[in-house]
């Protein structure tokens, strides 16, 4: 056969399998080239050299053609294999496999992070409380309007569900001596159930006590301003005098409305301000009740649901307690 025909054999192979057949027929032990080489024995000596040279050239040429072809077909085969592995990656996005923290719990985490970084300790206390820790020790004498039976859940044995996290302050002060830097996060309970009240909600309460006349309202202003900037970013902070039985002087703290930047909108009732905190200098009567003398301190408290609702623009308080995935999955 002519060189050209042999080359054509290689060229005609369209698959790696066909090429392999060609390889065997050309280069195999009984292949065409082997047969040609076998002729060497019968060829006269004087022609041997030319024949061998021709045959070696032919072999080299064919080998080169074979390798080229093999490379092409391998590449094609790989391409085909890869094509068969093609995936529409766009089918696999948004696979909802991750859950989410509850916005109230996540807000609580963020609040705790701030105060822990300010070297506040975290304290806890029982949910089922007695009258002394929940009311009396907090300068809420019997018959005080804030002790209205309507607001408190009582048990048949006279115990009650804590109405605020403040009893944790009392328990901490009774258990240890000043200095104290603590927060008490947790669930609290009020007998109130409507659009804007749930019978359970969460508070974070803070208390700082130092020996001597050290702690001032100016210090309270500083920490709460820092805290509100941590939570809400660049907002204005306003303090207004107010009243709480266990602090004196007391104040409520507002931030400039984060929805309208203080211009006035529906959320802030057109005032431009959102009330977010209550605070004050601890009333000496409270220290008296826990047997602290010559100390000074401040305390503050906030509602976590309120923070969560403001931060994430959640409109319906009660929806926070339904476990509705349509709400929760937004916080993935």
């Amino acid at each position, binding site marked *: 056969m002519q060189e050209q025909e042999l080359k054509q054999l290689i060229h005609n192979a369209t698959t790696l399998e066909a090429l392999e057949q060609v390889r065997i027929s050309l280069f195999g032990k009984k292949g065409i080239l082997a047969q040609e080489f076998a002729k060497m024995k019968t060829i006269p000596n004087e022609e041997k050299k030319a024949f061998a040279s021709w045959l070696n050239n032919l072999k080299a040429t064919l080998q080169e053609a074979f390798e080229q072809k093999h490379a092409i077909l391998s590449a094609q085969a790989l391409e085909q294999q890869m094509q068969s592995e093609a995936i529409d990656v766009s*089918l*696999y996005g948004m*696979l*909802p*496999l*991750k*859950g*989410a*923290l*509850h916005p109230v*719990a996540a807000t609580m*985490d963020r609040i705790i992070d701030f105060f*822990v970084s300010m*070297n*506040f*300790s*975290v304290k806890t206390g029982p*949910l*089922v409380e007695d009258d002394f820790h929940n009311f009396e020790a907090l300068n809420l004498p019997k*018959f005080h*309007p*804030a002790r209205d039976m309507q607001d408190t*859940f*009582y048990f*048949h044995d006279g*115990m009650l569900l804590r109405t605020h996290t403040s009893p944790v302050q009392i328990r901490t002060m009774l258990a240890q001596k000043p200095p104290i*830097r603590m927060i008490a996060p947790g*669930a609290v309970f009020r007998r109130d*159930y409507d659009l804007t009240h749930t*019978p*359970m909600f969460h508070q974070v309460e803070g208390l700082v006590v130092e020996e001597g*006349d*050290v*702690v*001032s*309202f*100016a*210090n309270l*202003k*500083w*920490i709460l*301003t820092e805290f509100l900037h941590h939570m809400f970013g660049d907002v204005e902070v306003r303090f*207004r*005098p*107010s*009243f709480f039985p266990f602090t*004196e*002087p007391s104040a409520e703290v507002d931030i400039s409305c984060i929805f309208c930047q203080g211009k006035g909108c529906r959320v802030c*009732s057109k005032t431009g301000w959102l009330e977010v905190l209550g605070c004050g*200098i601890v*009333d*000496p009567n409270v220290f008296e009740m826990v047997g602290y003398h010559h100390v*000074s301190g401040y305390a503050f408290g906030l509602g976590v649901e309120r923070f969560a609702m403001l931060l994430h623009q959640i409109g319906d308080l009660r929806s926070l307690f*339904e*476990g*509705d*995935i*349509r709400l*929760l*999955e937004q916080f993935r």
Partner: protein
Amino acid sequence: MIVTRRWLEEFIDLEGIDNSTLYDTFNRIGLEVDRIESYAIPRGVVIGKIVACEKHPHADKLNVCQIDIGTAIKQIVCGAANVREAEYVAVATLGSTLPNGMSIKPVTLRGIESEGMVCSAGELGLPQAEDGIWILDESIGELEPGKELQTYTNINDTLIELELTANRGDCLSVYGVARDLSAGLGIKCKPFEYKQKERFLLGIGRKAEFHIEGEIHASVRYKLADIKRVNIGALVKLRLAFAQIEYKDNLDALLLYTTHATGVMLRCYDAEVFRMQEKFRVALRQTSTGKVEVLGKNNTAVSMLGAYQQADAKASEATQSVLFEAFYIEPEPLVAAISSEQIQTDALYYQSSRGSNPDLYFGTCYLTCLLDRYCQIEWYEGVLEHRCEIEQQKIVAGIDKLSQILGIKLEQRKVAQVLHALGFDVRRKDHDEMVITSPLFRHDIRNVHDIAEEIMRIIGIDAITSKPMRFQERMSQDDIVDRYYALRALRQRAISQGFFEHISYLFAPKAIHEKYQVVSLDSALELANPIAEELNTLRTTLAINLLSALKHNVNHTQKRIMLFEVGTVFDAQRNPSEKIAFLYSGYQEPEGVRNSGKPRAITFDVFVSVLQSILGPMSFCNTTPTNDLMHPYQSATAYRDQTVCGTLFKLHPKTAQDLGVFDTYIAEFDVDALLPSHINAQTISKFQGAYKDLSIVIDKTLSYDKVHAAIQQIKNPLIKRFYPIDIYEDRQLGEKKSLTIRFFIQSDTQTLEDAQIDATMKQVLHVLQESIDAQLR
């Protein structure tokens, strides 16, 4: 507490003070503004004088009025019944537009032309002062037909609603608010001018007598009058409407108006309830519990100061002789008396218990002026009176202490000035201390901190520069913080496995606990005043509330529900413990192309593998259900390091059907049992190890944990780990099953010979044969 700007101006001059300054000042001094709203009557609404009023010829309910509007007499048809009693009214003239958007145009009503509209207060954008149209009188100013109503400053007013804190009973009146505002603005209150009438019927002593039985801790002041006709003006009606005060009749209205204006507690009696022959005999008695009762005929109590009044003792506008009573009683003893006897109280109790105005002279004078102005009334001269001297609080306060509390440098002179403006008396004791006497109306001021608050209110919190605190460095973080962060990491792992965090109420329905035989609180320890039936007990498991969230989600067409909750539960004795619970219901993975939209339902093995990705390795034992939520054959006790850490189960199919939910798995763990414990590392063997499988045949009913325990018992150090890899049952095996266990055998000290490995496996087999009757397969 609702006040209006014009009403305040009765007591304080607010000229030059705009509403935004008022708003800022109120907030600054601690009287939080809930609402501030200005009312302006639109142009074109004028005073009209009704010169004639006849019934509409074709409509029963309409009246045809001829009304003088200054420039002309207009015919206007009016539907309000009270137009017949009116002389002066508000007329919206042609071309004017009312706040509700209505434009006034000439119309024909049942054949009669009408050129304008007679307005109610509501139609003018004001609160509805009375039913029907608003009848005007001189109380709003001089009435001049055709004069624009918007020029009457008294009725184009600004409403300010204040949210008062519980200690500020002194601000429950317009005067009280004005007094606090005067300190805030640095403007003195106007003196109250009172002119006594010159004509009287008789001296009050000729008609009435007054008896005090024993010691009375209250002040009272009585005036007696004969009334003929009681009217109230348009302005009184409007302001009562602004303040949202409802009244029974005109006399009631004037009393309520006076109390709202002055803060003095007032009642009126039909004097006949005190009749003793020719005279009225009024007596006061104080009970041992501190109640102060007013006694009528036969010494029966007709009222209790600050608490109630018998209905039949109350004067109405039809009463002839009326005894007016002003009183002050100290809040604390009143509240104690009321609470100890559980007395039903009326509206006056709220203010009395928070501290009413003790200035009874002011209250009675204001009332007298008002009655003289609006009513036909004749007074008896003089008063019946009892004054109780109440000791004023004296507080010694040092300027250094006050400065320290607020964190700014204060001066005695400035402090005295502020306190004077608030009605306190201040005497300088030395360069530091002052003796401060608080006025009677500030019964809430008790100590130096209260004084600090007063100073802070008036100088403003803005005057205090915030300062970081200096404190001794001391590590505050403790086990509770560690625990909190461990739990937080656990919550993060839960969400990475697809769970959503749920927060439910601490409450649960007792009926559900009972229905499913779930432990519930002992009845002696139950909630005494639950808020709703579905929240009438404390939860003893997180499962019930998770199930109710599950149902909520199923109702909203969710097919794959994964929830977890961290929270407190209680046992029957109400001892609390903190749990973390997981609920996995419906599809085990989201619908998608990989499952052709039909994922498999959640199964036990998937549930526990997800749980172990979150909580770490644990082992499980079959357990007998303790309630009807649990599937009898898929319930387990979970162990961590050989200690019980929780329970998990498939929801009982019957309960699932009951609730209309899918296949559901629930697990509940003790948080404390899941917290990370301290770990010491073991040396890792350097020598080759080998895997060996062992297949045995055992009783079908024998659970794997027994096999596991038996192997563990051997305590052979070469058995590094072992785990079940296959379980097989068929008919041939009958009551038996085949179990394959894979062992990893390794020595810490040498490369093991085959013989050693075989010996180990033989030992295992031998032990299993002996202890659980296992056969080699």
